[in-house]
């Protein structure tokens, strides 16, 4: 049978179980005396073993089998976790993960599991021999009162096929079959021996009643895997097996199917093009002024919108799929660095477009590393500062309007603004006379490639790579990142991301002869320029909107478009968390759905574009990046 079709499913499900193993091990580590996680661990490893054996992945099966064995002993023995044991189980889990990943791509040979297998076996041996599962007492007495005297009835001797698995179970089935023919007694060895792994498949019993030899033999063979049967001393040659498969009627039914992610992306692209064509159709319908064409255009719009919603829904993925690997990572880092960290994850069920979620792993990893390495102090230092020796890091996802905010918060030492300021002055990033850094300036300095104030560069982070990587990645995704840091209290990074990347509603603004799209995700409102009195705040032109200072960005100037803007023109007010900015454009051309196309900006392009789109009339337009305009 062709197993390759199951490899993808095997991988997905194994990953899920191994991720669960991490959570369970962490849970067990937190409260070693509570054995509740062990049952879950045992089941997860057991499931992986069964799947791997079916796929023929010997190494995965081997490691899983030894780990399962150890877990079974732990589960039954009721022993609390020791640090040594937990380390071993973490190692075994990691080895399993590696073996699973390599096996699926046909590189199983590259992984060496000998050491972890030996350690698992060693640990299991220390815990004592494998106890047998408790099972109800069995014996002839149990099966009704009419036990014939020993010796009565015909002696039946059975040998099971050498290759038969779990011979004890098979032997018991033989006994059950025989019982349907006549009263059975004098089972040798006794049924309790069937439960032992050493049972070799040879056994005998006596059967009463009136059944003939042929009937008894047929009955015994019906249990399957029977090599020899001798009834009443008269030996029978093994007959041909009757176990032919029923004729195959290839009528396969399935209610759910698995879809390649690439196919989902392609579908999204196609819908995107459909949305573009729909825009064109709407424009044509508007100019044709024909009610019949209008009707069709409205129907096409409705149907394509439904289609689009369905596809976007199919792409939505809960954030735990990325978050779930972090508890383990934070734990390992904290151990390595001698820190005590309680790590909490909130909002695991919040959903994001798969494409965005896939890109989030690295930035989050950088931020979490920074939090453990630079944020959280050593237990001794924390005590000196009157804090709990155990620091706290929270990774949280929260849904906000059309975006999702993901934050990494630590209660560590906070960023030393003075140090950053000195460095920023030296590098000429801020005015040499600047007295303090705002949070925004702080982020801008930190996000400079290669920036670092860490005195000691550790292996973990501290080379400054990290924040710039995170900031760039988030910006490419059409999101924003902000920082809040209080010395001695901790640092929080908040990333805001659109829920989906592919199709967004946008304001279309005109500047000169060009059109630009501004995703509505971060548009708070639009106001008229000219009506509002402009003022100068911190050297920047701004308007005051309901007591809030909104700095202005003149798109015409920014893009180097010559000529003057109309005297009265709209301002698009952008809002991202606590930051706002007003973008001055020539005119507003309405709202529409745009399909975001990836866009490799040529070197030197202003960092204010996040992509491009094709308008209804087939002319491309650039998409403005709200993050870059703030």
């Amino acid at each position: 049978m062709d197993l390759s079709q199951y490899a993808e499913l095997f991988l997905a499900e194994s990953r899920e179980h191994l991720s669960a193993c991490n959570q369970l091990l962490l849970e067990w580590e937190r409260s070693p005396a509570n054995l509740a996680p062990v049952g879950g661990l045992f089941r997860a490893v057991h499931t992986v073993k069964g799947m791997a054996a079916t796929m023929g992945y010997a190494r995965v099966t081997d490691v899983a089998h030894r780990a399962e064995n150890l877990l079974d002993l732990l589960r039954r023995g009721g022993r609390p976790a020791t640090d040594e044991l937990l380390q071993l189980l973490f190692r075994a889990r990691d080895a399993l993960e590696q073996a699973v990943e390599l096996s699926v791509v046909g590189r199983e040979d590259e992984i060496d599991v000998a050491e972890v297998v030996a350690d698992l076996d060693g640990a299991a041996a220390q815990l004592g021999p494998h106890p047998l599962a408790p099972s109800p007492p069995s014996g002839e007495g149990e099966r009704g009162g009419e036990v014939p005297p020993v010796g009565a009835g015909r002696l039946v001797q059975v040998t099971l096929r050498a290759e038969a698995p779990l011979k004890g179970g098979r032997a018991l089935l033989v006994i059950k079959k025989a019982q349907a023919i006549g009263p059975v007694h004098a089972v040798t060895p006794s049924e309790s021996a069937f439960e032992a792994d050493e049972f070799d498949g040879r056994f005998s019993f006596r059967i009463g009643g009136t059944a003939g030899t042929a009937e008894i033999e047929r009955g015994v063979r019906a249990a399957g895997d029977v090599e020899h049967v001798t009834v009443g001393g008269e030996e029978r040659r093994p007959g041909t097996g009757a176990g032919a498969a029923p004729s195959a009627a290839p009528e396969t039914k399935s209610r759910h199917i698995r879809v390649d992610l690439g196919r989902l992306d392609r579908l999204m692209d196609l819908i995107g093009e459909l949305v573009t064509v729909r825009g064109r159709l709407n424009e044509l319908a508007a100019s044709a002024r024909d009610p019949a064409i209008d009707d069709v255009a409205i129907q096409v719009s409705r149907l394509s919108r439904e289609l689009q919603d369905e596809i976007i829904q199919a792409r939505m993925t809960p954030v735990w799929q990325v978050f779930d690997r972090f508890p383990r990572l934070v734990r390992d880092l904290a151990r390595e660095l001698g820190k005590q960290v309680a790590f909490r994850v909130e909002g695991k069920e919040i959903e994001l477009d798969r494409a965005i979620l896939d890109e989030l792993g690295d930035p989050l990893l950088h931020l979490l590393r920074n939090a453990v390495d630079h944020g959280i102090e050593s237990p001794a230092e924390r005590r000196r500062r009157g804090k709990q020796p155990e620091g706290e890091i929270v990774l949280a996802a929260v849904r906000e309007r059309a975006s999702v905010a993901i934050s990494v918060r630590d209660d560590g030492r906070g960023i030393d603004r003075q140090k950053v300021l000195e460095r920023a002055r030296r590098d000429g990033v801020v005015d040499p006379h600047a007295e303090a850094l705002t949070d925004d300036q702080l982020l801008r300095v930190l996000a400079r490639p290669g920036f670092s104030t860490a005195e000691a560069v550790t292996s973990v982070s501290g080379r400054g790579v990290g924040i710039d990587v995170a900031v760039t990645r988030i910006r490419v995704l059409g999101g924003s990142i902000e920082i809040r840091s209080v010395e001695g209290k901790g640092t929080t990074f908040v990333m805001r991301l659109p829920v989906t990347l592919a199709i967004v509603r946008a304001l279309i603004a005109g500047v000169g002869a060009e059109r630009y799209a501004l995703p509505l995700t971060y548009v708070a409102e639009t106001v008229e320029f000219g009506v509002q009195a402009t003022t100068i705040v911190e050297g920047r032109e701004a308007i005051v909107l309901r007591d809030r200072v909104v700095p202005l960005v003149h798109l015409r100037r920014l893009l180097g478009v010559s000529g003057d803007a109309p005297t009265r023109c709209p301002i698009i007010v952008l809002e991202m968390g606590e930051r706002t900015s007003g973008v001055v454009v020539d005119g507003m051309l309405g709202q529409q759905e745009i399909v975001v196309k990836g866009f490799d900006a040529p070197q030197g392009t202003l960092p204010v574009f996040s992509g491009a789109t094709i308008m209804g009339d087939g002319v491309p337009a650039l998409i403005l990046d709200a993050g870059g305009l703030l």
Partner: protein
Amino acid sequence: MSHTVLVCDDAIFMRTMISDILAQAGFEVVGEAETGSQAVEKYRQLKPDLVTMDIVMPDMGGIDAVRAIVKDDPDAKILMCSAMGQQALVVEAIQAGAKDFVVKPFQPSRVLEAVQRVLG
């Protein structure tokens, strides 16, 4: 008319594989269960001709599910799906009323043989 089957296993992988093997042999997989208690409930609803039952499942294990199903329907035809090294559990399952068992890794021919024995 083809026989109806209820497939019980906590791994989608295993359920898919068993379902495929059975469906290709002309059986109709009418339901799937991920836990023992789901298996018991679905058995009551669907009254399938055959049940394939994993031993280790969360919530309620396969053996307890066999007990519960057989208590309701002593003629229930349940085929245990076991892994190597589960001798004692298989014995327990048969004592509880399971009619036969197959051992992972599954070979389609052996699964179908066992199914024939159970239904025959």
